[in-house]
């Protein structure tokens, strides 16, 4: 795990949760490293969380992923202390959450964190607008002000006009939008989302994911997102933590998890993922083999021969990418009588892709092209190339050296 404790917004250190009659008495055994099953058999206590350490940074979507029973819902409820830890420390912006008293905890929940629930957690006896304004009502904001604000957020999630409906009159997707609007309405910096989209059908789910990503572009909240769906985790997560039986298996960027699973458990998860959809050009691209910056045709030819390639990527004096050129083309030009054209003029403009293009989209381009596809930013900055060979090896899941070096590039 990277040690970035200085800047982390939320720090979790040595968090343990044991369920049972006398959790603290069991703690030494858990810390000794006895297995969950052994402790359950011997003492009747269930180890919910075992030595969790996390750093969550401001503005990121931090996904905690695990199957049911892995402790992920228990873990997220520790951030706002809906569940009390047995041992450990949780610090949010320097505040030790565990040591807050009842009044301080209420204030903390009102202003620092809000939460979205799997089954929405809406109040069936309040209208949609009252539900959205609930957080503000609890804070004691007067009715006119809170209704006005709730209306804005309802609008932001695309539910304007539903103000006076009751939750039972809305579809699942709409109800969760209300849940999201309610969470955003308190202006809390941190958003806890407990399997927020799991109860929705696939089409609505991906719609909600898009909406969340779009809102996040604008709001830059710190989001802790729980899910059991790896595709969802890879899609929205900036960082993913994988939880198994109350212990962290791996914490890392989506690409790291996909390409370098830490253990057999994560690997089994990753196996079924559609890599072509998740991986992007910047992950698999490599530095171009033959980078031609010279104007001189003969020099270019010499460089190509030296590197044993019959094509090259041409750049002008300002280091801007111009196109691909082949040895044949240069040789023909040299053989022509009269003044030779410049290298830049000869270079052939071929399709390029952007760093965030998914492999799925690159695939057709790459098949049409005889040469590795150049990766170029919107501003014209040349980043690298994606060869067919790399793509095949990454998509096939072969963990060879090439791929490793590609993925580890910053």
């Amino acid at each position, binding site marked *: 795990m990277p040690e970035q404790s200085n800047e982390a917004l939320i720090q979790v250190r040595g968090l343990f949760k044991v369920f049972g009659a006398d959790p603290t008495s069991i703690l030494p055994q858990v810390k000794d490293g006895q297995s969950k099953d052994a402790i359950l058999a011997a003492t009747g206590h269930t180890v919910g969380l075992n030595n969790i350490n996390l750093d969550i940074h401001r503005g990121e979507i931090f996904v905690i992923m695990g199957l049911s029973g892995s402790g992920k819902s228990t873990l997220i409820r520790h951030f706002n202390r*809906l569940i009390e830890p047995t041992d450990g420390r949780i610090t949010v912006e320097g505040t030790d959450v565990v040591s807050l008293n009842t009044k301080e905890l*209420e204030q903390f*929940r009102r*202003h620092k964190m809000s939460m979205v629930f799997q089954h929405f957690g809406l*109040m*069936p*006896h309040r209208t949609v607008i009252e539900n959205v304004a*609930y957080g503000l009502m609890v804070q004691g904001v007067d009715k006119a002000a809170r209704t006005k604000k709730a209306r804005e957020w309802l609008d932001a999630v695309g539910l304007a006009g539903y103000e006076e409906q009751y*939750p039972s*009159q809305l579809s699942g997707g709409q109800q969760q939008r209300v849940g999201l609007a309610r969470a955003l309405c308190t202006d809390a910096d941190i958003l806890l989302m407990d399997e927020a989209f799991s109860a929705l059908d696939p089409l609505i789910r991906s719609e909600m994911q898009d909406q969340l990503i779009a809102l996040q572009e604008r709001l830059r909240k710190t989001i802790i997102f729980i899910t059991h769906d790896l595709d969802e985790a890879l899609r929205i997560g900036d960082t993913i933590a994988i939880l198994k039986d109350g212990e962290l298996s791996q914490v890392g960027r989506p690409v790291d998890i996909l390409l370098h699973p830490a253990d057999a458990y994560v690997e089994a998860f990753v196996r079924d993922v559609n890599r072509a959809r998740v991986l992007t050009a910047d992950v698999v691209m490599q530095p171009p083999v033959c980078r031609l910056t010279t104007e001189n045709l003969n020099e270019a030819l010499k460089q190509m021969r030296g590197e044993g390639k019959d094509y090259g990527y041409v750049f002008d004096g300002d280091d801007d990418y111009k196109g691909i050129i082949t040895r044949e083309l240069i040789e023909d030009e040299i053989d022509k009588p009269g003044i030779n054209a410049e290298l830049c003029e000869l270079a052939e403009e071929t399709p390029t892709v952007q760093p965030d293009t998914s492999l799925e989209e690159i695939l057709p381009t790459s098949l049409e092209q005889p040469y590795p596809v150049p990766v170029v930013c919107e501003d014209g900055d040349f980043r690298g190339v994606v060869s067919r060979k790399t793509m095949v090896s990454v998509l096939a899941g072969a963990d060879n050296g090439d791929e490793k070096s590609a993925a580890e590039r910053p």
Partner: protein
Amino acid sequence: MTTESWLTKFPEMERASLVAIRKGLDNAYRDFSRAWGESIEAVFDPLLMFLVWLEKLLLTSPWWLVLAAIVALVYGASRSWRLSLGVVVAFLLIGYFGMWENTMRTMSIITVCTLLSIALGVPIGIAMARSDRARSVITPILDIMQTMPAFVYLIPVVMLLGIGKVPGVIAVVIYAIPPVIRLTNLGIRLVDKEVLEAAAAYGATPWQRLAGVQLPLAMPTIMAGINQTIMMALSMVVIASMIGVKGLGQPVLKSITNQYFTMGLFNGLAIVALAITFDRVSQAYARRTQRHLKGGNDA
């Protein structure tokens, strides 16, 4: 000659010591009621005053005014003309058969008992829902209250407070309060855990959670409890009449002892009419508030 052994005969307590226990307890209670009876009676004075006031109000007001008030209440609670009309017909028949005064007396005592049961039962039910310890203490007490024959607890109540309205009210409340306590507890415990968690996650205080989430969501169940409480209070009317509670119970009691079949039937039917009125009105009210709260698909 067979020798008595614990194998052939249950090893009973000595008759003399059993008598001593009875006497001891009886005397102790008698002494207690003599010493404290009056001051305990004084505690119930406000209740008695209210009871007398309500009964007088119902009896001295002109019958058509009372009927109009009842119909207004029925319509206000149920918003149903059919039900209101049924109530008018039932009360006109009751009055025509000469049972108006007794019906008013019974209605006043039932109203007081119901209000008292709600005022005591809902908070007890809340306490039960909030703490498992409270529940484990209160549940067996409720079991006793519901199964102990009413006559048995009438004895100490009468010894302590004599015969009259207040002991009647106490006996009725003891018998009728368990449903509202049990169902308040149940209703609160059944509130969706996630909704409650949501309230907590947004920083709601325990009071905000109770008043804003738990009670409103438990209301349908609590209303069912109140409905049951009213029904049970009405069924106690005859027994309460044994300790001097005037109303529809007394003629029924009289007809049992004198074998007046028709008189018993008429008064019994009047009790049934009251019961149905209370039941339909409280249920219609509960349904109406519930539909409003839940939104419903027909809205």
